[in-house]
């Protein structure tokens, strides 16, 4: 407890942190995350209480304990179905965001492109997946491709809107500076517009991180025999509520994890303060 260890410097800011590295890390994690831990624990407790107090039958809403057991019993199934969904969500995330960013860049540099294709993008985003799915299967077959496309489509739109807004948020003064330096469009993009748009981009990526999981699941509903989406359908169809809830918990956990990965990357990338100083 009393010996000073180098590691404590990197530890999170617990005041007067002079404990051992491990204790420190644990305490630091707890100090930073205890509200989340308490809130989640509180929700779970409330859920357990409601189920118990109103004697809600399992088939309507299983108690957390039952869901916990379902984890144990279906561990292997859950794990096996997690990976394909994760893959689809991840690839959908990458492609959806990439295309959205590229489109946004195009829109910002060409107002004709923006006027012409922004409405088209809105239209595409507004087409329900259920109407799109048959065409996608027609073109891309029955494999993983249409699932990635659907996950990507769902990520795509918020990123497009945020990036268009973000790339336009660069301050006129900085753009003037770049003009005087006769910077090319791509230089302006990399040195000014992109950094200035990062708050918008990261907001979009946080939205996309959770949407991509949802997108992969929805894509699996339109026809898949594996993945968390298929497992949800399977559990619903067979009235296996604890398995259904366990799957939903896993899906939500995956989404939350991706969300916080993006938040973490943001905190590492955006280290400066906005424009005006002090």
């Amino acid at each position, binding site marked *: 407890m009393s010996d000073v260890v180098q590691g404590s410097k990197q530890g999170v800011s617990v005041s007067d942190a002079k404990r051992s590295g491990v204790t420190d890390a644990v305490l630091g994690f707890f100090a930073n995350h205890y509200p989340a831990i308490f809130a989640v624990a509180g929700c779970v407790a409330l859920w357990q209480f409601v189920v118990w107090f109103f004697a809600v*039958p*399992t*088939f*309507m809403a299983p108690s957390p304990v039952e869901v916990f057991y379902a984890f144990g019993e279906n561990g292997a199934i859950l794990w096996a179905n997690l990976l394909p969904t994760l893959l689809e969500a991840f690839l959908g995330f990458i492609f959806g965001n990439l295309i959205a960013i590229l489109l946004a860049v195009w829109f910002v540099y060409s107002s004709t492109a923006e006027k012409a294709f922004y409405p088209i993008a809105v239209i595409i985003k507004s087409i329900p997946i*259920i109407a799109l*799915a*048959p065409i996608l*299967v*027609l073109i891309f*077959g*029955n494999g993983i491709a249409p699932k990635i496309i659907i996950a990507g489509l769902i990520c795509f739109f918020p990123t497009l809107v945020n990036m268009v807004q973000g790339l336009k948020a660069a301050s006129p003064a900085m753009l003037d500076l770049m003009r005087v330096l006769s910077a090319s469009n791509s230089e302006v993009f990399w040195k000014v517009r992109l950094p200035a748009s990062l708050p918008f981009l990261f907001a979009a990526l946080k939205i996309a991180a959770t949407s991509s999981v949802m997108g992969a699941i929805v894509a699996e509903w*339109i*026809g*898949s*025999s594996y993945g968390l989406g*298929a497992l949800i*359908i*399977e559990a*619903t*169809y*067979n*009235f*296996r*509520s604890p398995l259904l809830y366990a799957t939903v918990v896993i899906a939500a956990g995956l989404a939350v994890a991706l969300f916080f990965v993006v938040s973490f990357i943001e905190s590492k990338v955006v280290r400066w303060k906005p424009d005006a100083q002090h």
Partner: protein
Amino acid sequence: QGLAKIRMQLGWLASNGLLGEVVAIEKGFYAEQGIELEIVPGGPNVDGVAGVASGQSNVGQISSSPSVMLARSAGVPIKAIAAGYQKHPYAYFSKKSKPIEKPADMVGKTVAIQPTGAILLRALLAKNGIAEDQVTVVNMGADMNQLVTGQADAVVGWLTNVNALKVLGDDRIDMLLWDTGIQLYANVYYTTDDQLANNTKDLTGFIAATAKGWGYARDNPAEAVDILVKAYPNLDKASELEAIGPLMTFAFNETTVANGWGAMSKENWEAQIKTYADLGQFKGTVPTVDDVMSLALLDATTDIRKQVG
């Protein structure tokens, strides 16, 4: 005034599976029984079982009989009380160029099914002694495209869905699931144990009036379709007129001639339970016949039902 309210939860879209009900409402058959029927919508993602089990609705209609067994096995206290379609219209469609007329024809072919139909295919194969790895199974959505494009050799659907059949055209071979030995009911009516015990009178009235409604619909198809389309304006009248013919062959057959509209048999349910039990589909306890069905309401309405048999 003074009519007892019965809420019926659908397990699928409002469609021609409701013909009898809308006719009975329009013709006052429910009122005759002292009840008023409210139809609660369901859909592809809403089987409605939770609504019935929780008591929000008094009775439910579900597409296919296995749902009742699976729910019962999972501890949901529901029981089937009548079978709307005596034969399940679920069928495998193939092209004449690559026909699937009997289960053995499936060997070496690609069959596209909805994920929820996987168990039916497994049952079919097991019943007919075909190893599962001899058939390639792919997924399909709500469309028949894969058969048309040749991505699959068979797709599935309901024979009552005339528009789906139109898509496939005349170059089509139908193989009914029923004819392969997997004999399920469709459009099954169910209720909870509690309702069955405590709301017997109104439910009896419900079955009686519904039976009358279906009978009237069979006898006056054009008028019935008019009533249906008036109640659900989103439906397409022309297709419904075409559908009502084939549809009535599922709702009424030799069994109903003998036992009246809605009849079910213990033997059939027992066979269904066995099929599912053999495939290990019951995660909870294996239900007994009396767990999954009750003939009480059918028995109480035999007279009326036989009039419309």
